[in-house]
């Protein structure tokens, strides 16, 4: 992935139109200004989320445009009301990452490297899963989970939330593992490593980036899940923060600052991941879609 999209190669003719290095610096900063305006528009709702969360005593009145006197009361209440739900979300999301990677990584490797005649069909199947609406899955899982006692349980949510992570992880990791030269695995096998050991000690370390990308997105999918939280939990015992937020909107509309504080807290993973792992995020967005 090249960081800078366009660069001039020395020696080409001077008036290449799209190559904007030739343009005066001022012209390029105008583009930057336009870009900033676009992003400001797009990010306004997120700014508003933070702004409202920092307002004190935010009854249902017009929120000031800026948090001139920031107050953390909203966050205190959010932690009191939703702290437990945040922990639930964290546990479920981490569980879903582990489950999805354990299931998807070997499968991705098999689909990428082994000579399996029906591999294409498996891959078709994986792609088709994208077309199955969550509500259809929830509909069936509700009665199945109710029979085997997985309603209102962390394992139940981990299993259901991984319906987003597993297909995505297979697709992203398979694309990457296809580019590992078979000769490297062969070398390990000749040294006496079994298929599994070669996979664990050679393929997985080499696929580090793909694993991180798949893991990050699996985490975000499970963290952001709302449908399964809504349909597969019926009590307050196990309640992810997304559902907590939804019920907040329904009950507390007199005071928006704890609601927005909860929204900010529930958005933190996305923000943190984008800051520390931007290249993996970018790889995931394109990898999941076009492959």
């Amino acid at each position, binding site marked *: 992935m090249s*960081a*800078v*999209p*366009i660069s001039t190669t020395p020696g080409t003719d001077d008036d*290449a*139109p*799209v190559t*904007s290095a030739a343009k005066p610096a001022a012209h*390029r*900063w105008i*583009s*930057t200004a*336009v870009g900033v305006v*676009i*992003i400001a528009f*797009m990010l306004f709702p*997120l700014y*508003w*989320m933070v702004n409202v969360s920092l307002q004190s005593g935010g009854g249902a*009145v017009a*929120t000031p445009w800026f948090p001139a006197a920031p107050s953390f009361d909203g966050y205190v209440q959010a932690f009191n009301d939703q702290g437990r739900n945040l922990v639930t979300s964290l546990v479920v999301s981490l569980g879903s990452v582990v489950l999805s990677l354990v299931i998807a990584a*070997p499968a991705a490797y098999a689909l990428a*490297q082994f000579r399996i005649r029906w591999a*294409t069909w498996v*891959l078709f*199947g*994986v*792609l*088709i899963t994208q*077309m199955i*609406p*969550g*509500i*259809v899955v*929830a*509909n*069936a899982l509700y*009665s199945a989970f109710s029979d085997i006692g997985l309603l209102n349980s962390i394992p139940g949510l981990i299993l259901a939330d*991984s*319906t987003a992570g597993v*297909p995505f992880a297979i697709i992203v990791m398979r694309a990457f593992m296809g580019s590992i030269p*078979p000769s490297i695995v*062969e070398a390990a096998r000749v040294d006496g490593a079994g298929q599994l050991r070669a996979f664990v000690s050679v393929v997985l370390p080499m696929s580090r980036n793909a694993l991180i990308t798949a893991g990050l997105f699996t985490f975000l999918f499970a963290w*952001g899940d*709302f449908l399964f939280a809504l*349909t597969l939990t019926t009590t307050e015992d196990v309640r992810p923060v997304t559902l907590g*937020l*939804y019920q*907040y*909107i329904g009950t507390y509309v007199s005071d928006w600052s704890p*609601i927005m504080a*909860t929204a*900010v807290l529930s*958005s933190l993973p*996305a923000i943190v991941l*984008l800051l520390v792992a931007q290249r993996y*995020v*970018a790889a995931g967005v*394109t990898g999941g879609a*076009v492959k």
Partner: protein
Amino acid sequence: MSTRADAGTLASASDAAARPPRDGVQPPSRGGRPARSSARTKARIAELAFLVPALVYLVLFFGYPVVKNLLMGFQEYTTKTFFTGEAPFVGLDNYSAVLSSSLFDKALLNTVLFTAGSILGQFVIGLAIAVFFRRSFPLNNVLRALLLLPWLVPLIASAAVWRWILDTDYGALNRALQLLPFVDGNPAWLTSTSLALIAVIGVNIWLGIPFNATILYGGLQEIPEELYEAGALDGATGWRAFRHITWPLLRPVVTVVLVLGVVYTLKVLDIILGLTNGGPANSTQTIATLSYVRSFKEFDFGQGAALGNVLVLLSLLFAVVYLRLNRKAVDE
């Protein structure tokens, strides 16, 4: 493909060659059929073992729900079922009940409007932003990364903040509109039956722009620079360059983005429930939300399943296109 095939045979051959000496057994001759084929079978089983967990998971969490929904669509599946364990088959009763209700027509229309409106908006704006970011300018990368944020934040968090932004009396949008000279009165974005669907589509467009822009930007980067240089020599710049160079070469990516967008948008539920709960007066009810209401509000899982199956059918129409597009990518 052929290198992979070689690797496969190599693998089983080296298995056969490497193992026997360690076991202290005579190495089988090259032509030793039983030893060789059993080693190969073993290797084959080891390979399949890699796929088993994924296959089991996919069958349980996608295959089973699809089959189960098909069955439930023909059953009277209500709260009673959970106590008695009985779900009598009722033929097409669920479907006729669902399809004949006036709410279905409304939900179907809303689904089509919601999907078409969302996709159109997301795609046009996303493409414009992608084309814009092809320019080289300071901070380009940083801004492009920030653009992803709305897409990564939990949908329900976005829905929550939009609810407040779109509030009739105190929402930021109406307060901004008040500053404009020609607007009078406060549009009731989420609480009027005529505006709610538009508002929900607007929010969904906002949500989809990052995805569209990022994928399309990736597609634009694949187009070789030389084509534009050559085009410029023939006088194709600006709009003409876009029409004759960018658009034709971007077509494959465009198709993928549009079909994926349709498939994802058809099943959207979170954002509608978070913003309007399908209201007011069902004006934002879609097939997906209606299926949720039937199953989990009214506990008529049979009707909920029937609606879910209608949704799957709609998606399948697009799936055909989707698979055709992906066949190429898969075969490579």
